């Protein structure tokens, strides 16, 4: 098992190095996206994979499986994830949230039949969303460049390191029976994807350029998550960050950022 993790971490390191080498090619000048050429290629690869394999399977899954069962499957994996969500809350110095996460696991694993029912939510223990990328962000690590990985999708450099930790500490990684582990992984991917099917159409319709729409949404979303949904208001292009300046009000804050870039 450990060798698998090491191998995966090794692969990630190689990919980071490749991305770094590709830096500077084909960019439209977004300072958060220095390897845009590489990223667009990987994004295209992931879209292709989604189109021919993952989305059709997820659509079939959504059509065939009654929706209470889908919820049960999603709850089962959500319960497993709550364990490390709790650990990350603890690492971020939020013991109350961590305790609530531990309570969720305890209640849902027992009363909720191995997590299939989310009893804890009805008892008022709110589900959280945490991972190592957020923890490192909370600790002050800069997010670094935006990178799109094959299979894993959008990350920043910080979230890539976080991802390596997430995979290494994922309870599913410790299922020793390989066919069982692979099945669990596959079902989780399909279940996660099925939950996003509705959002597809909205993004498809909203975006002028899907790649940059997804990128900017990812970066905004991560920033919001690190601040638990209450990020300090700022203009994403002002560069200086915190506080909403009078400039940002009429949209001229972008000029300072563009000026800095040129």
């Amino acid at each position, binding site marked *: 098992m450990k060798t698998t993790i090491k191998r995966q971490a090794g692969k990630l390191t190689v990919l980071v190095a490749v991305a770094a080498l590709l830096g500077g090619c084909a960019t439209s*000048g977004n300072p958060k996206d220095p390897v845009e050429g590489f990223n667009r290629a990987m994004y295209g690869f992931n879209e292709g994979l989604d189109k021919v394999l993952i989305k059709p399977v997820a659509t079939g899954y959504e059509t065939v499986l009654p929706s209470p069962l889908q919820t049960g499957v*999603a709850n089962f994996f*959500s319960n497993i994830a709550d364990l490390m969500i709790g650990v990350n809350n603890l690492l971020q110095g939020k013991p109350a949230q961590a305790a609530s996460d531990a309570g969720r696991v305890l209640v849902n694993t027992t009363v909720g039949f191995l997590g299939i029912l*989310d009893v804890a939510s009805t008892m008022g223990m709110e*589900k959280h969303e945490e991972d190592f990328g957020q923890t490192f962000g909370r600790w002050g690590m800069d997010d670094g460049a935006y990178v799109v990985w094959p299979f894993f999708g959008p990350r920043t450099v910080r979230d890539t390191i976080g991802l390596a930790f997430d995979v290494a500490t994922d309870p599913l990684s410790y299922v020793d029976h390989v066919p069982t582990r692979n099945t669990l992984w596959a079902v989780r991917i399909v279940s996660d994807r099925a939950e996003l099917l*509705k959002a597809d159409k909205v993004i498809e319709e909203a975006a002028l350029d899907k790649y940059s729409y997804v990128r*900017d949404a990812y970066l905004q*979303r991560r920033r919001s998550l690190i601040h638990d949904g209450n990020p300090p208001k700022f*203009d994403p292009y002002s560069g200086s960050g915190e506080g909403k300046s009078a400039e940002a009000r*009429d949209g001229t804050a972008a000029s300072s950022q563009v000026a800095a870039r040129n």
Partner: protein
Amino acid sequence: MRLFALLLACASFFVSPGALAQQMAPDALVKSVTDEVLDIIRKDKDIKAGSTKRAIELVEQKVLPHFNFTRMTALAVGKDWRQATPEQQKVLTDEFRDLLVRTYSNALIAYKNETVDYRPFKMQAGETDVTVRTQIHQAGARQPIALDYSLEKNGNAWKVYDVVVAGVSLVTNYRSSFANEIRNGGIDGLIKTLKAKNSSLEAAAKK
């Protein structure tokens, strides 16, 4: 006394129901519009059947009056906004509004079995820029989706100038693709792209 009655009559003449709505506190405004729209969505047969046209009508009638689209478009365009002529600004605003309305209407159709929670709202006296936070609960979903509205006070009326879904601003998320279009084809290039996008969406909806 007669003078007082006369003043009162004049006042009631000028204070139309619309003007009353504009004086509502921002959180009350968001709540009343949301509740009204959700109520219609749950009852309307055409929307239940997935009619984009009907959903757009509903949004235009009930939601649009409370949005400041000029401000939204200026925020999405960023620094190039000042380079645009007033006519270009108007066309940009109209096209961007069409795009947002269409996207938003379709989202309404897709997510109709939801309930909305209003987060506690506090406002200092004299504040003119606030955020009203809501949470969307979907049947079966473990985690609610945060849906925040940024509102600004213009005169007496509070108008929404940004909608933030799960931490993502629907307005500033367009900024880099808008900037790209402007870099490649100027303001008119962006207008052309937006028009093409809207007409392709319209064509798809008619199918």
